[in-house]
């Protein structure tokens, strides 16, 4: 399946032939790091191979539209509940630099004892099933071909069906997964014996498939009231999962710690988060680190969140993180909207490129408070471990509430999470293996009579599914009414009818967001803002962000609501303008030539700003390309404009005409055209008019070569002139 940048992802095509689709590779892929990588005018110290297709950062327009890529993998978490909508979001994120897509599971999947099949709709995530995974992997294969970089697909091997999900992921080419039995125990109340026994099998399957493992320690930050106080325990949680993984044979380079800088401003973030990150890097020097951005202390203000996330990313860069995980700036107020996934990815991309080469120039101090704090954290962690052993081991320590206590260990608040080793989901399901226990499959952990043979354990019956994928059993759907095929009916019908609606999450959701400042006290302003949104025609308006500018002077609100409007694409009037030439292309053509331009605001019109924007070098006007501009100023008669054109042997005349009463702007254009004709100058002159009410169509009707309205830049005008002049020169 091949994607074309100008065509939407065709979900029907993805679903076609899915029963035969096989992943083309297994295991995790890192970016190809490049040292001293020359891109445009710069040399990057910490970059990786560029993409074939991407959307650069907005400011790239000043730097030859370069899109350098950092050497860190960038993660985005995507799950709206409908995987078919998520695929489009994944494609957008990939174009903005994401190469690790994490798919969150639907609420409650942890407690489902077995695999889910088909494509039921999820809540807050996707019900992870073979069909959804296979379809997603197929889409990602096409997307990675389009952007030219491997995309790692990731989900969760947790809950009471861990080993089965691990098999599914290994068979279907999932590249990364969370696997941490402590997560089940602490946050899902799954029986601890069951969790750890299952985990050994799941980890064995994952390591043989080259799946990168993330642990679950970051959840302690997310749940603690004072997240910076659980840091000693976090080292312990990381270490238990890491040592357990090593014990089942998982190599160090497949073990990634999932960490989060614990605080956010106005907390003095660097005082707390930097020593923590340094201590983590040092204690776990042989392992990978995936740093997430802070979610614990985020409110509904997306700008505030973004700034915290920039600081998080700075810490990642200072402590040699391997994966930068992003959090959408709107996660504090709703299930992420798709353009906010892109915003989150761009926060990481922009920050990392800005920080390129930082650690070549600065270093962390080898003494002082940083080292003292790092040492203290490590010692507190060692004391935590000692206490686990004193209590009689991991299970008793959990039973006695040693984990997720709000105290800064060894301080204790007595409010830790308490779990009984004999209860929880899946209690009494751990069964001792008999002496003749056997499991005739690959990637099995522990006692097994078949492992004593010299042959592969699955040779007796021609190979297991990990050796012979043709044996994998594919189930399409179990519940047809709750399936992707059913859900696609509406989007396909809309597409066929050429109907468009706004969306933030799912096809046709029609949600829009407006920003309003209301100059009143907060409560009055909020009521007024909602009323204004209703007047705009928004249904169910809801304030999703409020920020007081001043208790009496006003507040700013973001309001979401449903804009129930279906636009028919065929009835749209779409301008057919072409993309302007690049700054460089314009300058390269103009500079060696002597192109004379006469410009003026004509008639009795004192508006000079518009023309300045187009001409002046300091406003980004066309002078910067090497056009020789003669600005005659304001209220200039048409005759005078043409006199000057004659004198300077100009090829271009730009007139600005802002005043429009009695259609005076039209008369100016017609007059210019007619007079130039009378004087025999029209053919050698390019006549261009600009102004608030000018359109290309109107200007042409009035004899101009073209016209420009609001929002025009020097580049637009320069580009137009070069295109026409090039043609004239060719003739």
């Amino acid at each position, binding site marked *: 399946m091949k994607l074309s940048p100008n065509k939407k992802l065709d979900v029907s095509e993805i679903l076609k032939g899915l029963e035969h689709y096989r992943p083309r590779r297994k295991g995790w892929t890192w970016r190809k790091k490049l040292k001293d990588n020359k891109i445009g005018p710069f040399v990057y110290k910490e970059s990786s191979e560029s993409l074939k297709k991407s959307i650069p950062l907005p400011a790239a327009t000043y730097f030859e539209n370069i899109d350098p890529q950092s050497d860190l993998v960038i993660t985005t978490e995507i799950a709206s509940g409908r995987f078919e909508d998520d695929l489009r979001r994944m494609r957008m994120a990939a174009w903005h630099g994401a190469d690790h897509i994490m798919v969150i599971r639907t609420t409650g999947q942890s407690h489902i*004892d*077995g*695999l889910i099949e088909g494509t039921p709709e999820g809540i807050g995530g996707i019900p992870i099933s*073979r069909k959804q995974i296979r379809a997603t992997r197929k889409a990602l294969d096409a997307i990675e071909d389009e952007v030219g970089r491997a995309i790692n697909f990731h989900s969760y091997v947790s809950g009471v*069906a861990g*080993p*089965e999900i691990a*098999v*599914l992921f290994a068979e279907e080419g999932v590249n990364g997964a969370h696997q941490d039995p402590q997560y089940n125990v602490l946050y899902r109340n799954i029986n601890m014996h*069951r969790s750890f*026994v*299952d985990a*050994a*099998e799941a980890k064995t399957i994952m390591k043989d498939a080259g799946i990168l493992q993330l642990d679950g320690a970051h959840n302690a930050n997310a749940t603690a009231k004072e997240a910076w106080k659980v840091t000693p325990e976090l080292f312990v949680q990381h*270490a*238990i999962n890491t*040592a*357990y993984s090593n014990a*089942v044979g998982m190599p160090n380079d497949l073990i990634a710690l999932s960490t989060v800088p614990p605080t956010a401003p106005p907390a003095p973030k660097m005082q707390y988060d930097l020593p923590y990150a340094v201590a983590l890097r*040092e204690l776990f020097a042989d392992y990978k680190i995936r740093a997430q951005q802070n979610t614990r202390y985020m409110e509904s203000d997306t700008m505030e969140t973004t700034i915290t996330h920039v600081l998080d990313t700075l810490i990642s860069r200072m402590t040699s993180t391997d994966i930068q995980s992003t959090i959408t700036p709107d996660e504090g107020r709703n299930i992420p909207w798709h353009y906010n996934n892109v915003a989150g990815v761009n926060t990481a991309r922009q920050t990392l490129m800005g920080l390129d080469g930082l650690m070549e120039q600065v270093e962390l101090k080898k003494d002082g408070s940083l080292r003292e704090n790092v*040492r203290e954290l490590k*010692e507190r962690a060692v*004391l935590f*471990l*000692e206490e*686990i*052993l004193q209590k009689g*081991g*991991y299970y008793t320590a959990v*039973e*006695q*509430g*040693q984990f997720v206590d709000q*105290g*800064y260990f060894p*301080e*204790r*608040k007595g*409010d830790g999470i*308490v779990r009984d080793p004999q209860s929880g989901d899946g209690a009494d399901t*751990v*069964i*001792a*293996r008999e002496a*003749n226990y*056997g*499991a*005739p*499959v690959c990637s099995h*952990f*522990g*006692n097994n009579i078949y492992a004593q043979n010299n042959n592969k354990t699955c040779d*007796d*019956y021609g190979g*297991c599914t*990990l050796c012979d994928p043709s*044996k*994998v*059993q594919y*189930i399409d759907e179990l519940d047809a009414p709750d399936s992707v095929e059913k859900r696609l009916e509406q989007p396909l019908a809309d597409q066929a009818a050429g109907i468009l609606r706004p969306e933030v999450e799912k096809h046709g959701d029609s949600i829009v967001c407006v920003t309003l400042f209301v100059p009143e006290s907060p409560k009055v302003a909020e009521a007024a803002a909602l009323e204004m949104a209703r007047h705009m025609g928004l249904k169910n308006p809801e304030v999703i962000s409020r920020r007081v500018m001043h208790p009496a002077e006003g507040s700013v609100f973001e309001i979401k609501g449903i804009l129930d409007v279906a636009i028919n694409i065929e009835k749209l009037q779409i301008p057919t303008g072409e993309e302007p030439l690049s700054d460089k292309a314009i300058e390269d053509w103009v500079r060696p030539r002597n192109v004379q331009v006469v410009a003026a605001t004509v008639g009795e019109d004192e508006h000079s700003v518009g023309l300045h924007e187009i001409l002046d070098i300091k406003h980004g006007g066309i002078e910067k390309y090497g056009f020789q501009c003669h600005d005659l100023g304001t209220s200039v008669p048409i005759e005078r404009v043409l006199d000057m054109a004659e004198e300077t042997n100009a090829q271009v005349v730009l007139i600005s005409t802002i005043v429009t009463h009695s259609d005076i702007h039209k008369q100016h254009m017609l007059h210019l055209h007619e007079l130039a004709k009378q004087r025999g100058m029209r053919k050698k002159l390019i006549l261009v008019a600009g102004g608030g009410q000018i359109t290309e169509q109107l200007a042409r009707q009035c004899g101009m070569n073209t016209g420009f309205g609001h929002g025009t830049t020097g580049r637009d005008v320069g580009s137009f002139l070069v295109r026409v002049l090039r043609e004239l020169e060719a003739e």
Partner: protein
Amino acid sequence: MSCVERPDDFERRRKKLQGMSDEELHHQFWSLVEKIVEPVIEEARSHTTPSIERSILLRMGFSSIEANALVAKILEQNLLGHGAGRLILELAKAKQLSIHETGTALLAGQYWEELPV
């Protein structure tokens, strides 16, 4: 039973660690972790669960629905400690059936008394 409240007595407790170099402290950290993990991994080596057994049947080519039903029945018969995969493989050999035919027969109620426990 929850942990009782305790003030931060870190300064007192850290005394025994302060003489250690960073390297020695790291070593201490990891050797303690290994001691914690050891008994836990031993349990995993010598025990199984319904999910592990279902994952084995998936790898032997059964669908998730078949694997669920087979493991549930084997558990009912108190035979899971022998390994669902081994029971089916050895029965298949004895009956000269394919793995899948054997599983289907068991699901139809056949051969249960002939399982090689």
